[in-house]
C-alpha cells in the first residue's frame, strides 16, 4: 500500500494531522515512541472548560464509516491510518515527495498476532516497579499494559526491568512471548512527507532542591495530581494524600515550576499550566465537595484564551480558590505530620506561613530538547513550536498547519472507494451467518457452544452457523469469506474476542461479499459475557447473539445519498486569517471566492509597520491576489447564505449594488475584529492618551516620535478582563511590551511604568517581557479593586497607582498614557444571523467545541477563524485560517458526500411535521423543506446520535442500525431468556 505521510508522535496533534490527511484520502502511518497512542492525554481524563473528556469529538465527522466509532482513548482505528506503537523514525532520506523513511520498531516481547490478552503473563511476573502511567503512584509488572484502556490491549515487556526469568513465557497459553527479539527496521518508500509531532516533555522538578519533589511524598506534579484524581488512577479517582491516603484539606499549587526561570534556562512561559491548575483545583474541590482549601501561588494568571478569564473567575467564586500573587521559595515539611509548610508574601506585603496537605507543582515544558537531524530535510514538517505546551485547540490548529504543508506536496486526488453492492442478495429476506469462534478451544470451559447452536436453530430467522477454531487468524477470515460465497447469507455476526481488532478485516470481508459494512456485527465473547457459571455465561452469550442477529435482521440497507460537492469555497473576510485560508484552499486546487467589505484586503494588517509581520502579510497578499484560483470581491457584502455542506449558495451585493449568487461547497468566516473603545482612564480627554494599537501604529509609521516622550505610563486591561468584556485580548500585553521597548531603545532616558493585572506574555513572548524589564521598564501589578486612577487637570495627565511591592502609592504625571483596550469582533451580529451560527456572550463567533473543534462552527461546512472567533495574534490568525481551510477541504476535497450507516432518516409517511426534531439536533442537520413540506435530514451533518429518533413520538425517524424495533426486541430477548 502506498504511504503518503509518516507522522511521528501519536499525541493529540499527531492524531489530528493523521485524521486530516486520512480524510483527504491520504494513507498515513502514525507512530509513537510510546507503546500507546494519545500522548499526554492518555493520562489526562479531564479538560476544562467542562472538566471532562470529549476526545472522541476529534473523530472524523465526514465519512464517519471510515473512521472508528468508539472512544478515541481506546486507540486509533481508521481505514487510512496505520498506527505503529513503540516506534521511532531513525532516518529520512531523499527528496520531498519521494522520501525514504526508516522506522525502528522496538521489540516488545509479545506477538500481537498471537496474544489474546488473557493477562496470564502479568499475573506470574515477579517484577514490581513504579507505574509511569500513574506517575509512579502505583506499581506495575515488567510485563504490563501501558495504558489500561487501550486496544489492542496486549501487554508489552519493559526489558529495562525484566529479569528474564521466563515465567511469562511458561504461562502464556498461546506461545506469544519471545524474550529475545530485537528491534525491527521498517522502511516506507516513497513517502510524500513526514510530520514531526513528537511534543514536549515535562520539566522534572526533582532536579531542583527547592520543592522537595521526590523527597516529600506529598509534593506532586500537576500530572501526578491528574492521575491521583483519575478513575483509572491509583486510588480509583479518590483524592487522597499519597503518603498516608488521608483526605486532603488544604492544597497549594505552585505555578511556573521550571518555567519563567532564567536560572533553569527557561525564559519562557509554558502557556497551559495556569488553566491546568485552575481546572485541577476545580476538580479537586468537586471531588472533595468543597471541603478543601486550594491556594494557587502565581505570578501572572495567564488566562489568555477567549473564555479562560471567566472560567477562572467562576472557579474563584464558586469554589473559593485563593489566588496568591507570590512565587513560593521552597516547600518544607511540617514538624510531626506529613503536611508541608509554605511561606509567602501577601498582597499587603506581609510574610505569611501556612500548612498544606498537598503541594502541586505546575511543571512547565522541558527545555533543551533537540530536533532529529533530518528535521530540516525537505518534506519534513515539524509542528510549529513542537516543544511547546499548547492548549488542545491550539495544538490541533498547529497540526492542521503541518498537515496542510504535507498535503501541499500533493497526494492522491480524493477518489472515494466505489462500493458495489449485491442488490439481489440484499433485497432477499435477511439471512444471517453466525460465526462462533472457539478461540482454539479456550472457551469450552466457560461456554457451551453446542447448546447455543442447538438453541439458535430454533429461533425465528435462525442464522446459519459457522464454528471456527480461531476466527481472528487469516485462516479464520478465509473460511468466513468462503462461507459467504457459498451461501446466500446477507448478514454476518462474528462472536469472538476483541472485536476492535477485526474492524479492518470485516470491512474487507464486506467489500468482497458486496454487502454494507453495517451488515457485519461483532460480539465480544470475552469482555461482554457476564456470569460466573458456565450456564450463566452461555445464557448471557446466547441472548446477546439472539439480540444481535435479530437487530441485524431488522437492519435495512441504508439509502446512501450521494451529494455532489460544489468544488469551490467562499471565504468571508480578507484579513490575515481569511487570506491564509483562501491561499491554502487555492493551493489545494479549490476555486475560492474571497469577499471583503473593505475595498482593500489585509484587515488589521494594513496598519502593520515594516517588519517581519508586514513582510509575511505582503507576501500572502500578493500570492492571493495573483492566484488564478482566487476571485477577490472587494467592497462586497454577503447578504444571504443558504444550503447544506457541499452545496451552499451565497448571495452577495457588489459595490454597484448588483446581487450575485455564488455556489460553493464550504464557507470560511473570517470577518475579523478591531480594537475596543473604553471610557475608563479619561480615555478621550487628552491627546496624550492613546491606545496600545494606535501607539504601535504611530511608532511604526513614524507619526509619533519616541523622543517626544520623557514619561510614559501604560495601563493594561483598560475596560477589559472584567464584566461586561471579561476576556483577555491576548495580544495587548505583548504589543505594549514591544511599544515600551521601542521607546526605551530610541530614548533610553524615558521613564516607562506599566500597570498590569497579569502580564500575558505567554509562550516565547516571555522573552519580550524579560527584555522589557532589562531595558529598565518598571512594572506595577494592580488588582481590580485597586486600579490606577487617572485624572486630567490643566492639560496634565495624572496617574496615581499603588505599588504592592513597596506598599506605596505611586504618583506619575506622564506625557504619554497608553491604554490596552483589547479587541472586539466586528460584524458578527449580522454574520452570525446570515450563517445561522452562534456567538459567545461577547459577540465572538462560537466554535463547535473550543478544545476539539476549534474552527468548526456548529454547522457542518461553515468554519470560523481569526479575530472574529477570538482575539489572537497575526501568526495565530494565519494558522487558524489554514486550519479552517483544512477542515473545509474534508468536504471540498471529495467529489461527493455519502450518507454514513448510522444516520437518521425520516419516514415522511409518518412524519407529522411538528418540527420538534429541528432544534433538538445538535448538528443543525434537520430542516424543513418548505417547498415540499417535508422535514429533511442533512445526512452529511447528521452524526447519528439519535436524539431526534427518541424524541419523535410516532417513530417517524429511523436510525440506521439502531432501529426501534431491534432495540425493543433485544430488551424482550434479554428479559425472557429461557435457560438453555
Amino acid at each position, binding site marked *: 500500500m502506498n504511504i503518503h505521510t509518516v507522522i511521528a508522535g501519536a499525541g493529540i496533534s499527531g492524531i489530528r494531522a493523521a485524521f486530516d490527511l486520512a480524510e483527504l484520502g491520504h494513507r498515513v502511518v502514525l507512530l509513537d515512541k510510546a507503546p500507546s497512542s494519545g500522548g499526554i492525554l492518555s493520562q489526562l481524563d479531564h479538560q476544562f472548560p467542562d472538566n471532562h473528556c*470529549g476526545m472522541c469529538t476529534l473523530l472524523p465527522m465526514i465519512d464517519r464509516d471510515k473512521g472508528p466509532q468508539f472512544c478515541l482513548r*481506546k486507540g486509533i482505528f481508521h481505514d487510512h491510518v496505520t498506527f505503529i506503537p513503540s516506534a521511532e523514525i531513525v532516518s529520512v532520506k531523499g527528496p520531498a515527495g519521494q522520501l525514504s523513511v526508516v522506522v525502528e520498531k522496538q521489540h516488545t516481547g509479545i506477538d500481537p498476532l498471537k496474544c489474546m490478552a488473557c493477562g496470564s503473563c502479568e499475573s506470574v511476573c515477579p517484577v514490581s516497579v513504579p507505574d509511569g502511567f500513574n506517575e509512579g503512584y502505583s506499581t506495575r509488572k515488567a510485563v504490563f499494559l501501558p495504558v489500561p484502556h487501550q486496544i489492542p490491549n496486549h501487554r508489552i515487556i519493559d526489558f529495562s526491568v525484566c529479569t528474564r526469568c521466563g515465567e511469562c513465557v511458561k504461562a502464556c497459553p498461546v506461545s506469544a512471548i519471545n524474550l529475545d527479539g530485537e528491534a525491527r527496521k521498517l522502511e516506507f518508500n516513497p513517502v510524500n512527507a513526514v510530520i514531526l509531532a513528537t511534543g514536549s516533555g515535562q520539566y522534572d522538578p526533582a532536579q531542583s532542591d527547592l520543592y522537595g519533589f521526590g523527597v516529600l511524598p506529598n509534593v506532586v506534579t500537576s500530572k501526578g495530581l491528574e492521575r491521583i484524581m483519575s478513575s483509572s488512577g491509583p486510588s480509583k479517582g479518590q483524592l487522597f494524600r499519597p503518603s498516608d491516603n488521608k483526605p486532603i484539606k488544604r492544597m497549594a499549587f505552585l505555578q511556573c515550576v521550571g518555567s519563567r526561570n532564567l536560572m533553569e534556562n527557561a525564559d519562557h512561559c509554558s502557556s497551559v499550566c495556569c488553566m491546568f491548575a485552575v481546572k485541577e483545583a476545580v476538580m479537586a474541590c468537586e471531588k472533595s465537595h468543597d471541603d478543601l482549601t486550594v491556594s494557587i501561588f502565581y505570578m501572572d494568571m495567564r488566562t489568555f484564551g477567549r473564555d479562560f478569564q471567566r472560567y477562572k473567575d467562576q472557579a474563584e467564586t464558586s469554589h473559593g480558590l485563593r489566588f496568591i500573587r507570590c512565587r513560593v521559595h521552597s516547600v518544607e515539611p511540617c514538624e510531626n505530620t506529613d503536611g508541608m509548610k509554605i511561606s509567602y508574601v501577601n498582597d499587603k506585603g506581609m510574610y505569611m506561613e501556612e500548612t498544606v496537605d498537598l503541594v502541586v507543582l505546575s511543571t512547565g515544558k522541558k527545555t533543551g530538547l533537540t530536533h532529529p537531524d533530518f528535521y530540516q530535510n525537505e518534506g519534513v514538517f515539524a509542528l510549529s513550536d513542537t516543544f511547546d505546551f499548547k492548549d488542545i485547540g491550539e495544538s490541533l490548529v498547529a497540526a492542521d498547519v503541518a498537515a496542510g504543508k504535507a498535503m501541499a506536496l500533493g497526494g492522491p486526488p480524493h477518489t472515494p472507494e466505489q462500493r458495489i453492492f449485491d442488490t439481489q442478495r440484499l433485497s432477499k429476506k435477511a439471512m444471517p451467518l453466525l460465526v462462533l469462534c472457539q478461540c482454539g478451544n479456550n472457551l469450552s470451559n466457560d461456554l457451551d457452544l453446542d447448546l447455543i447452536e442447538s438453541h439458535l436453530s430454533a429461533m425465528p430467522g435462525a442464522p446459519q452457523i459457522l464454528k471456527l477454531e480461531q476466527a481472528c487468524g487469516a485462516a479464520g477470515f478465509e473460511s468466513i469469506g468462503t462461507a459467504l460465497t457459498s451461501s446466500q447469507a446477507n448478514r454476518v455476526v462474528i462472536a469472538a474476542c476483541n472485536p476492535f481488532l477485526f474492524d479492518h478485516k470485516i470491512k474487507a470481508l464486506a467489500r468482497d461479499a458486496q454487502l454494507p459494512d453495517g451488515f457485519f456485527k461483532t460480539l465480544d465473547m470475552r469482555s461482554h459475557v457476564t456470569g460466573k457459571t458456565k450456564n450463566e455465561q452461555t445464557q448471557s452469550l446466547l441472548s446477546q447473539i439472539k439480540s444481535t442477529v435479530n437487530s441485524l435482521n431488522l437492519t435495512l440497507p441504508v439509502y446512501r445519498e450521494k451529494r455532489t460537492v460544489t468544488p469551490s469555497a467562499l471565504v468571508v473576510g480578507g484579513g490575515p486569517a481569511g487570506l491564509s485560508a483562501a491561499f491554502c484552499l487555492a493551493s489545494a486546487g479549490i476555486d475560492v471566492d474571497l469577499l471583503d467589505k473593505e475595498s482593500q484586503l489585509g484587515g488589521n494588517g494594513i496598519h502593520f509597520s515594516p517588519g517581519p509581520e508586514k513582510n509575511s502579510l505582503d507576501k500572502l497578499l500578493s500570492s492571493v491576489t495573483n492566484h488564478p484560483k482566487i476571485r477577490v470581491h472587494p467592497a462586497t457584502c454577503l447578504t444571504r447564505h443558504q444550503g447544506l455542506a457541499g452545496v451552499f449558495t451565497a448571495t452577495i451585493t457588489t459595490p454597484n449594488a448588483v446581487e450575485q449568487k455564488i455556489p460553493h461547497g464550504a464557507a470560511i468566516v473570517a470577518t475579523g475584529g478591531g480594537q475596543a473603545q473604553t471610557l475608563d482612564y479619561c480615555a478621550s480627554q487628552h491627546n496624550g492618551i492613546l491606545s496600545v494599537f494606535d501607539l504601535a501604529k504611530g511608532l511604526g509609521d513614524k507619526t509619533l516620535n519616541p523622543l517626544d516622550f520623557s514619561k510614559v505610563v501604560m495601563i493594561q486591561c483598560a475596560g477589559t478582563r472584567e464584566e461586561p468584556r471579561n476576556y483577555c485580548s491576548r495580544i495587548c500585553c505583548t504589543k505594549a511590551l514591544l511599544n515600551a521597548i521601542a521607546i526605551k531603545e530610541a530614548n533610553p532616558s524615558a521613564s516607562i511604568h506599566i500597570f498590569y493585572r497579569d502580564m500575558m506574555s505567554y509562550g516565547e513572548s516571555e522573552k519580550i517581557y524579560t527584555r522589557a524589564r532589562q531595558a529598565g521598564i518598571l512594572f506595577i501589578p494592580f488588582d481590580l479593586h485597586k486600579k490606577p486612577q487617572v485624572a486630567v487637570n490643566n492639560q496634565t495627565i495624572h496617574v496615581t497607582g499603588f505599588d504592592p511591592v513597596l506598599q506605596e502609592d505611586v504618583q506619575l504625571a506622564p506625557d504619554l498614557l497608553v491604554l490596552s483596550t483589547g479587541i472586539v469582533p466586528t460584524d458578527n451580529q449580522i454574520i452570525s444571523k446570515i450563517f445561522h451560527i452562534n456567538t459567545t456572550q461577547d459577540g465572538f463567533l462560537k466554535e463547535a467545541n473550543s478544545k476539539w473543534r476549534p474552527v468548526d462552527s456548529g454547522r457542518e461546512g461553515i468554519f470560523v477563524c481569526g479575530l472574529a472567533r477570538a482575539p489572537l495574534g497575526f501568526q495565530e490568525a494565519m494558522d487558524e485560517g489554514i486550519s479552517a481551510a483544512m477542515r473545509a477541504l474534508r468536504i471540498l476535497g471529495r467529489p461527493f458526500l455519502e450518507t454514513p450507516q448510522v444516520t437518521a432518516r425520516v419516514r415522511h409517511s409518518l412524519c407529522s411535521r411538528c418540527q420538534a426534531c429541528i432544534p433538538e439536533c445538535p448538528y443543525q442537520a434537520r430542516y424543513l423543506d418548505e417547498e415540499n413540506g417535508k422535514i429533511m435530514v442533512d445526512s452529511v451533518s447528521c452524526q447519528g446520535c439519535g436524539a431526534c429518533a427518541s424524541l419523535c413520538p410516532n417513530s417517524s425517524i429511523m436510525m440506521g442500525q439502531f432501529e426501534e424495533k431491534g432495540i425493543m426486541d433485544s430488551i424482550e430477548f434479554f428479559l425472557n431468556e429461557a435457560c438453555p
Partner: protein
Amino acid sequence: MSEYKPKIVALVCNWCTYTAADLAGTSRLSYPAEIRMIRLMCTGMIDQKYILKAFLDGADGVFIGGCHPGDCHYIDGNIKAEKRIGGTRNLLSQFGFEPDRLALQWIGASEGPEFQHNMTAFVERITALGPSQVADRMIL
C-alpha cells in the same frame, strides 16, 4: 425457589459507558451476571418506550449509563436523556414502581472501576427491592 436474581437491562452509550464496560471487561473487573447490556450510540437515543418496555416485560431494574455532562460525543445527548428519563421515572413512580429501579449514571470511558462499582451497587439495590410487581404477570 432458588436465590432471587434480578433481571436488569442496561442501556449504555457507545462512547463512554460502553467503553468503561469494555475496560472493566478487559481489566477483568467482573460485574454481576444479571446485567444485560444494550449498546446505543448515545443516551440521547433512548426512547421512553425502551424503558417502559423493559419494565412491562419484567425487568426489575433499568440502568442507563452515559457520558458525564459536557462529555457527550453528541454535545448534549446525555442532558436530553436526563430530562427524558426524569419524566419516565416520574411516570413509573405513579404506578408503584420504586423510582430507584430506574437509574441514570454518568460513567466516563476510562472509568472501568466506576462501571463495576455502579453495576454491583445497582444489582444490590435492586436485589434489596426484590422482584418488580410485574414479575409473572400476564400483562404487556
